[in-house]
């Protein structure tokens, strides 16, 4: 048993060898038309994947067994840590999270190999081979710069330094795997695109194969981002849900590009247009995933989410990034000129609406990219150290995103190739009027704000248009509504669900920013304070012992109309191993509002600084995210992707 970490390291080296073989052999097989070499792709993928998983499991075992002779374990775990946090500590640091990254990549590859029966004979191996190239790069990165299996012998520490207390949380157990599933899942679409470029087989079929994979990855990424936002909301102790921080932007950019990709793949599959653009977008999306990994892991940007990181690793990832993106774009430049769209598209058709979607999403991605990288550009030219503030992102992102949502209402109604203006008008005038009337009604109860009013009307417009479109589809036929509704394909419902999810999130965002109350007060025991219709009474603090921390728990009674409605217990924890302070906010969640209390610092005479927030509709932001995710999965589950294709 004592040799286990060495075995883990060795297994990882083997995995890299197989990844390298996967990168080379099937590709040679394709070029030399050698069926035997081509047939190696599947077994090599399974071997690479199995071995990488084995090494991941070995690391998890080292954590579970408190093997503090392993440097990485000793830095991120502690014997007092509850077992589920020991397991999640596997991805609590740089080395382990990269191992998770590559493990998920190889799992996607294995799943693709398993499903590759539906692909034509030469495409499957080439796609897997492309994934092999990416895997080789990242496995080499882990082995050469950041192996999690290094030992500290013979002076092994008695106990570990502990997992960063911020990460000791349910949100952080599931957030990174979900996020990576999404990030890395885009590698499949990327591999399809590259394989299409290599084989020159750029007809619409690659888009059909790539679509379900892209949808599923996008769904995971959506969930990952929503979880991250939720975690930041309650765990960072200051109640924000999005900070436009570089690390957050790093996950948002592939999401935006991925959203564009989903839509552009639809056009390419259905109409055979935008072909070269879709390929470029697939490359672009995965490149942004890689860039995100680089930004998070290199520590080049100041971020509230930044964890200690090592610049030499940054250089390695940057090199990897440049090689992968550079060679993809080079290949694209060589091949894309051969692609000709066979079908032209009408200016009034759905193609045009989706083109608008793609333009706006691309612009959104680029504005986030620019804002995120601007400090690096500034620094590179020795102009000084700067940071780009959240107001930049709010000012630029919001209007473009709102415009996009306006079009989201209309786009799905349009017909392919050609849409009659009269038809669009017939369907959309009523929702437009209703949205404006309803929004105005709501604002009679609230202080008027033009921007918020417009945003809210747009959110309502989107919901009403989704509804209108559905009604139009189910009422059109002679069959009963129920029969007709059941006949609509899953991908249609997936789209509707995701679009409504966007509206739900938007409503959440509007109300949180418009209707929330935030107070930071000094409270001594016995003090009462009124915040937004609730009365909060601070009864003092009591001492609490946790498994690996001690804490002061503030006891706060909440009154509404003179009645106690709940008691809230925010904590200030001191984690012993690291001697690190942590704020654990108390939440009273609700469908239309969250009560949020966190303790600041102890002041004189038993008084504390206390943050009391009332967050309107904040849950809707993440609820919308869940709807989007469900929509993405539903669309991917559509029956037509199960059909075998011989093309």
């Amino acid at each position, binding site marked *: 048993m004592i040799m286990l970490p060495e075995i883990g390291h060795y297994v990882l080296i083997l995995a890299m060898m197989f990844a390298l073989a996967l990168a080379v052999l099937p590709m040679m097989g394709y070029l030399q038309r050698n069926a035997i070499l081509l047939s190696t792709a599947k077994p090599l993928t399974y071997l690479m994947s199995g071995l990488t998983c084995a090494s991941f499991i070995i690391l998890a075992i080292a954590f579970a067994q408190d093997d503090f002779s392993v440097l990485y374990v000793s830095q991120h775990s502690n014997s007092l840590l509850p077992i589920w946090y020991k397991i999640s500590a596997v991805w609590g640091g740089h080395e382990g999270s990269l191992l998770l990254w590559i493990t998920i990549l190889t799992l996607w590859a294995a799943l693709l190999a398993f499903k590759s029966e539906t692909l034509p004979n030469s495409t499957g191996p080439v796609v897997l081979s492309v994934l092999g190239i990416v895997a080789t790069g990242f496995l080499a990165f882990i082995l050469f710069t950041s192996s999690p299996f290094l030992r500290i012998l013979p002076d092994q520490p008695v106990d570990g330094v502990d997992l960063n207390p911020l990460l000791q949380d349910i949100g952080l157990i599931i957030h990174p795997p979900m996020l990576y599933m999404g990030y890395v899942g885009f590698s499949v679409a990327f591999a399809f695109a590259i394989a299409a470029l290599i084989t020159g087989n750029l007809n619409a079929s690659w888009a059909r194969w790539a679509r379900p994979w892209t949808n599923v990855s996008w769904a995971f990424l959506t969930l990952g981002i929503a979880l991250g936002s939720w975690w930041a909301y309650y765990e960072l102790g200051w109640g924000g849900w999005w900070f436009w921080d570089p690390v957050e932007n790093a996950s948002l950019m592939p999401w935006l590009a991925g959203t564009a990709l989903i839509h552009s793949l639809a056009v390419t599959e259905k109409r055979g247009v935008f072909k070269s653009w879709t390929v470029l977008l697939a490359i672009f999306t995965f490149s942004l995933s890689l860039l995100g990994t680089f930004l998070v892991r290199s520590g080049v940007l100041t971020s509230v989410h930044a*964890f200690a990181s090592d610049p030499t690793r940054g250089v390695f990832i940057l090199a990897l990034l440049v090689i992968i993106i550079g060679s993809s774009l080079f290949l694209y430049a060589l091949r894309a000129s051969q692609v000709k769209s066979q079908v032209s598209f009408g200016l009034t058709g759905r193609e045009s609406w989706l083109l608008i979607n793609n333009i706006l999403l691309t612009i959104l991605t680029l504005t986030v990219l620019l804002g995120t990288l601007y400090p690096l550009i500034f620094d590179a030219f020795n102009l000084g150290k700067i*940071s780009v*503030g959240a107001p*930049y992102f709010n000012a630029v992102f919001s209007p473009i995103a709102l415009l996009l949502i306006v079009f989201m209402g209309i786009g799905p109604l349009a017909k392919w190739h050609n849409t009659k203006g009269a038809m669009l008008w017939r369907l959309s005038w009523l929702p437009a009027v209703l949205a404006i009337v309803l929004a105005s009604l709501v604002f009679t109860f609230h202080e008027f704000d033009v921007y918020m009013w417009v945003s809210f009307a747009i959110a309502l417009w989107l919901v009403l248009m989704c509804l209108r479109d559905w009604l139009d589809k189910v009422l059109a036929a002679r069959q009963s509504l129920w029969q007709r509704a059941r006949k609509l394909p899953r991908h249609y419902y997936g789209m509707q669900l995701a679009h409504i999810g966007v509206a739900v999130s938007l409503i959440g965002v509007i109300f949180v920013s418009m209707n929330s109350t935030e107070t930071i007060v000094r409270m001594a025991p016995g003090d009462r304070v009124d915040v937004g219709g609730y009365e909060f009474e601070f009864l003092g603090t009591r001492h609490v012992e946790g498994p690996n921390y001690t804490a002061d728990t503030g006891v706060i009674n909440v009154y509404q109309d003179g009645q106690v409605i709940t008691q809230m217990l925010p904590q200030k924890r001191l984690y012993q191993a690291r001697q690190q302070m942590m704020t654990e906010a108390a939440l009273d969640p609700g469908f239309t509002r969250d009560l949020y209390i966190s303790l*600041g610092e102890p002041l004189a005479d038993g008084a504390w600084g206390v*943050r009391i927030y009332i967050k309107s509709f904040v849950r809707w932001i993440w609820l919308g995210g869940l709807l989007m995710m469900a929509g993405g999965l539903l669309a991917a589950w559509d029956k037509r992707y199960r059909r075998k294709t011989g093309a």
Partner: protein
Amino acid sequence: MHPVRKKRMITIAVILVVLAAAIGLVMYALSQNINLFYSPTQIAQGEAPQNVTIRAGGMVVDNSVERASDSLDVAFSVTDYQHSVRIEYTGILPDLFREGQGIVAQGKLDERGVLIASEVLAKHDEEYMPPEVTDALEKAQAQ
């Protein structure tokens, strides 16, 4: 004009207009929202502008943290070991704020040369040092 070419022209024109509008918006927003970082030495030498949002950072000086007894006002100094600058803030400091640690604050300099901070940046990890602070310390040491 040929219909296909006309269609293409319209598409390209639309893209260009949208792009131009977006670039205008971006440039304007960027020019309004860039916050330059100044080290304590730069501030002491008067290089930093007053009443403009900037970032400043360094190591929190030991025993420099003063808390008001009846409010959430707090003041402390940060140093790059050549010069130091006083920072005043109202609110709750992040969990990992501690004397002897590197921090970055965002705010405006007043006429006394004190940074009135609107935000003191938190971080997730004790070992993490903001890159600007590392850079400022290295520069100060080189002098």
